[in-house]
């Protein structure tokens, strides 16, 4: 598998989904997964799969002795493996800048020279593709499509492309032609395409012109939350309604502010929280001031790790008014903690959730109505909380893993 992120060092939902899916798949006894990421930190959980750092794979032949290799990258990779991989170098990549081991230094993030990193990653894939021991190539998200395609061309093994998002989601339709090109080539070359929701499936078919027969939806799931009991809700007079995520165009933060101002016209018993950061944060602060609700509307800035769950646990309502969300795992996390959620119908997770309120992202009246109901009517809160928890506990990665497996089986035979 080619991926870009893997917990614990993650930047977005991709890492979480990669982890959950591979863990779910690893429960099948005859499944061996090798997961390639640009730059591992050495503290990844490798109990159920093998992680290879692209930054440790030589793409240019350099003579080094065993001890030196061990000293350099021994904490992440067995030197024997280094030498084994080195035998896979069949092309001349001396044009690429490499270090003393013949490897590329990846940032493992989303740097400005992202396109260059993607193509270097492709070079790494060519080396890996010459290893004999795999049956399927599985690429996660557009950053790794070129790598997957190259590996397929070399090895002739089937390629599965996993679409976690498309550029149409990220840009509200204003796609970047370079990115679209990379995505399109990857999807065209794939033997099968997995999308995280029917919403994404539709985009892949309609905007990337793919044959519907080779596109299958496998909905994401959510890892069981450990230590649920340690998150406590403080008793308070006022209710808390929370938006949590990147404050960007894609997430529809302005609709949340508008809905908040409607609710506050009717009841003063509520506080609104916008947690996270992003390029629209300033604009949102301005909007809140303009609507004269700043005394009831709070910004927390970026939250991470445990803080996220603490915030969710303290909330009476979690809201995700995304304009376009391929899946959206955070409502599931909120439900795990027993927080009622409101999601937009334009979110992939709306396809599998029954015990969450669904509204159109632009329908601020309906959104305000839903917030008001949950805050005012205890039965509403109770039902959403209890039945939502029950529902989300039945959405398991293991089942998603089985679906992916059946796609593999259909490709191999």
């Amino acid at each position, binding site marked *: 598998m080619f991926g870009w992120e893997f917990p614990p060092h993650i930047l977005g939902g991709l890492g979480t989904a990669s982890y959950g899916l591979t863990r779910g798949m690893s429960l099948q006894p005859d499944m061996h997964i090798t997961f390639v990421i640009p730059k591992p930190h050495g503290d990844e959980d490798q109990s159920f799969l093998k992680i290879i750092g692209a930054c440790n794979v030589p793409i240019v032949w350099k003579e080094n002795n065993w001890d030196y290799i061990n000293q350099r990258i021994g904490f992440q990779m067995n030197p024997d493996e280094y030498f084994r991989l080195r035998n896979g170098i069949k092309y001349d990549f001396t044009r690429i800048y490499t270090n003393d081991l013949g490897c590329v230094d990846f940032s493992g993030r989303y740097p400005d020279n992202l396109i260059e990193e993607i193509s270097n990653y492709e070079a790494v894939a060519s080396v890996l593709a010459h290893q004999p021991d795999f049956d399927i190539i599985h690429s996660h998200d557009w950053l790794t499509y070129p790598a997957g395609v190259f590996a397929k061309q070399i090895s002739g093994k089937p390629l599965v492309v996993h679409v976690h998002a498309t550029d149409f989601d990220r840009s509200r339709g204003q796609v970047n032609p370079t990115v679209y090109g990379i995505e399109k080539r990857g999807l065209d070359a794939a033997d099968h395409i997995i999308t995280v929701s029917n919403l994404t499936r539709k985009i892949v078919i309609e905007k990337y012109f793919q044959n519907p027969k080779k596109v299958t939806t496998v909905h994401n799931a959510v890892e069981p939350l450990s230590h649920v009991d340690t998150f406590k809700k403080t008793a308070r007079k006022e209710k808390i309604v929370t938006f949590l995520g990147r404050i960007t165009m894609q997430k529809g933060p302005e609709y949340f502010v508008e809905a908040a101002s*409607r609710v506050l*016209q*009717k009841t003063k018993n509520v506080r609104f929280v916008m947690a996270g950061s992003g390029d629209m944060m300033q604009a949102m602060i301005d909007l809140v001031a303009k609507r004269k609700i700043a005394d009831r509307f709070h910004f927390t800035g970026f939250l991470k790790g445990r803080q996220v769950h603490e915030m969710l646990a303290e909330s009476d309502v979690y809201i995700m008014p995304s304009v376009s969300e391929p899946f959206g795992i955070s409502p599931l996390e909120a439900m795990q903690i027993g927080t009622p959620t409101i999601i937009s119908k334009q979110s992939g997770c709306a396809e599998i959730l*029954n*015990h969450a*309120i*669904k509204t159109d992202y632009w329908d601020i*009246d*309906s959104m*305000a*109505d*839903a917030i*008001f*109901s949950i805050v*005012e*009517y*205890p*039965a*509403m809160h*109770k*039902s*959403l909380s*209890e*039945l939502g928890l029950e529902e989300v506990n039945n959405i398991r990665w293991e089942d998603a893993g089985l679906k992916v497996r059946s796609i593999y089986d259909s490709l191999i035979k």
Partner: protein
Amino acid sequence: MRNICFYFEIHQPVRLKRYRFFDIGQDHYYYDDFQTEDTIRYLTDNSYLPANQILAEMIRNTNGKFRCAFSISGVALEQLEQYAPEVIDSFKELAKTGSVEFLAETYPHSLASLYDMNEFEKQVKMHADKIESLFGKRPTVFRNSELIYSDKIGEIISKLGYKAILIEEAKQVMGWKSTNYIYSHPTQSKLKLLIRNFKLSDDIAFHFSNNSWHEYPLTSEKFISWITSLPAEDNLINLWMGYEALGVFQRRETGIFDFIKALPYHAMENQINFILPSEAAKKLESAGPINVSYPISWSGTGKDISSWNGNDLQQEALNKLYAVSERVRLCNDKPLQHDWLMLQATDHFRYMNHKDAFGSHYDTAYEAFMNYMNVLADFLERVAAQYPSNIENEELNELLKTILNQEITIEKLETELKKLKTRKAKNQEV
């Protein structure tokens, strides 16, 4: 002698419009008249009118031997009067034949029998008045909304003077007993219980046009042969269904009207009679008492009342609603009283069912709940505005009585005063 007892139900709720929380306190009109009218017109044209016509024809052709009963809720009658008065006329025609009986029920098709017995009695009387004023005859047989029944409900109904009540074939109370007899209430032995034949009723109402059903196609001949093959002692087959079964659930193209039309001939060939519920209660002997300690209904696999009050949402809505019933009865604000009835229809609560929201036009149970609760919030504000909510009901009752008595005394004194004045004036003249 074997008897078939037909009864058709008509009930349609008044649909609530999309009512947002910012409408609370601003907008006191809750109904979506367009949708309501649309539904009623659709049902009228596809089911009520053509079916009435067929039934009238059947009664004529059999010299009144074909007989059937109707139960039309007060809410439905109001809607018909407003949007399809020709249906009311057509029912009046049917009533004149003498072969048709109208049953009593709760005026708004409510769950009052489970939540508030005073309200229940009031609604039953109200409905009987309405039926009498329209069709000229006071009902003697009772059928509760959704066939909800328990011993307690039976007792009240018997005290109100009804001779029989219609109930559902529920396994938990019937056990091995056959539905094809008449039974009685355990303590009020005068009250007869008629039990719906669940299988044969649903065969007509739901399976008739289902071509994957192993008995498809169902002909009148076949249907009657099932009845003749029943044990010889079975004397009463109760076929009860929603009237929409004729023409909407089973569309005209399926041949449902021809099926119904042919039934009397095949029945009479086999010496099977048609009978009205009130006649059955009078003529047939009770086969014994039936105990029903927990309420049953004609809905769901459990045949219980969980379809309407099984989850937290439904319970919250019902409790909030019935908490003010006494208060509403004290008011004499006409529009308020009317809204009170409309909000009690069972359908509103059925829509809040997560699994089985029969007939719902909402996407989810939560949406149904949100909308209803917003309407209810406005309604409760109006109730509170009538009398201050910090006064207890009993106290309020006393106060109202005093006010009423005062008015009467004042009136009395005034007439006396007038009398004295005229006398005085006369005296002066003299």
